């Protein structure tokens, strides 16, 4: 089953023993607290999972892909995610469609 917020809450109910309402609220609070930290300009470091970093980007030239017209891309602050070593190793082990195709070819 796809991992949605509802499924996450269901598993907090089953595996941690929060009641259904607490579990649902917890999932929302979890993502909100991470967002609030990033909104305050504060990086979030989740050991074993990864870091949500903030980067300040300067204005740069861009182009409307449809019209080809040049329009500057304004300066902005963006979130980047850098996976931790543990998550990287776990994901590398995934033999997905492309890895499979490469092995056959």
């Amino acid at each position, binding site marked *: 089953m796809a991992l949605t917020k509802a499924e996450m809450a269901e598993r907090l109910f089953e595996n941690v023993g929060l009641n259904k309402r607490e579990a649902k609220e917890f999932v929302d609070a979890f993502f909100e607290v991470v967002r609030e930290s990033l909104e305050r300009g504060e990086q979030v470091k989740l050991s074993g999972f990864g870091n949500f970093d903030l980067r300040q980007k300067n204005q740069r030239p861009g182009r409307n892909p449809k019209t080809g017209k040049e329009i500057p891309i304004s300066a902005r602050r963006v979130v980047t995610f850098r996976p931790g070593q543990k998550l990287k190793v776990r994901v590398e082990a*995934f033999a997905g469609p492309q890895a499979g195709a490469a092995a056959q070819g």
Partner: protein
Amino acid sequence: MTKSELIEALARRQTHLAFHDVELSVKELLEQVSQELSRGERIEIRGFGSFSLHYRPPRIGRNPKTGESVALPGKYVPHFKPGKELRERVNASTQPITGGDDDPD
């Protein structure tokens, strides 16, 4: 913000939950996302962002010490794309960026 600070922030917010349950719940959520990604599944959290895998094709790498060529197999790496609400809230922020961008654990 570190994982323990995230746990503390959530415990302050969800005061009806035992601290230990907050701790377990944070670990459980991160484990759920990691597990789902390591199965090659995509996770989408509206307003926060989506986690998915990106494929890196096989390449010839080099041992930086000996200069020797090594064939590196294709692999999958975790990827996060911030959602609209997170992008907008972070970009609206005028507070200085803190926490740096050190390597994730």
